């Protein structure tokens, strides 16, 4: 293994419509500089990331940040790490986090009389 996914940070729960930030920490555990990339999906939808790939020094950990909008159901975000072997991208490690959909509690506000009239 070269690109070790150390951890994936994302909220455990969110409301529909929230922006979910997924931080994938990847460590270069090889003894040489490596081009490392991360891809991810929630369900079957791709998650865009801030960088396509980064050049990572031996022992260095980088955080690749992606985001998506929380849909109206709980989702699993799965991430994969890749490294460049000089001719192609090689799939290396994977991990996932589950994000539960938070139910919105019933709330009322701004209850006011607007007008009254004889009908």
């Amino acid at each position, binding site marked *: 293994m070269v690109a070790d996914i150390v951890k994936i940070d994302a909220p455990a729960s969110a409301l529909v419509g929230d922006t979910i930030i997924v931080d994938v920490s990847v460590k270069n555990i090889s003894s040489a500089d490596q081009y490392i990339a991360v891809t991810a999906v929630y369900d079957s939808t791709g998650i865009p990331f801030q960088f396509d790939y980064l050049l990572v020094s031996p022992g260095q950990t980088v955080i690749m940040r992606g985001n998506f909008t929380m849909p109206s159901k709980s989702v699993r975000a799965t991430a994969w790490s890749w490294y460049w072997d000089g001719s192609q991208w090689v799939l290396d490690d994977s991990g996932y986090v589950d994000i539960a959909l938070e139910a919105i509690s019933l709330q009322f506000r701004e209850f006011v009389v607007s007008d*009254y009239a004889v009908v």
Partner: protein
Amino acid sequence: MRGRMNTLSEAEQILEQVGVAPGTKLTVVPGEKIRLTATIQHLGPAVTATFYAALGNRGSLGFDEWRVGQTSVSFNQDTVWNTYPMSVVIDTTGLNTNTSCDLYCKLAEYPGAGMPEVDNVIDIAGATFQNFSITDYSKA
């Protein structure tokens, strides 16, 4: 001239249908109906509630409800705050005249939503006479 009178009459009818703002006095005679309109913002799951309004008098022991009106209101599932208009009709038949009334409304099943109230805004008018004069007299 007749057409102009009709237009004026229609305009007056339209004006009567337009509600007055909270705090403004409205005079009614027993038997007329009052339409109260309110708005509320909702967030969360879909629910159905009873929009309840009462005409009466706010006293030291609470609101003495003389006449009430109620109607069912449906709220959709809202993931963002959504404003709903609601209206209900209160029949004033049988009310004592020459009194002043208060109005309040609520969602019967959700007291936490609030109970907006406007006091001393409805006058129940009694019969009035004017231009009382002798027009003629003759041997009967």
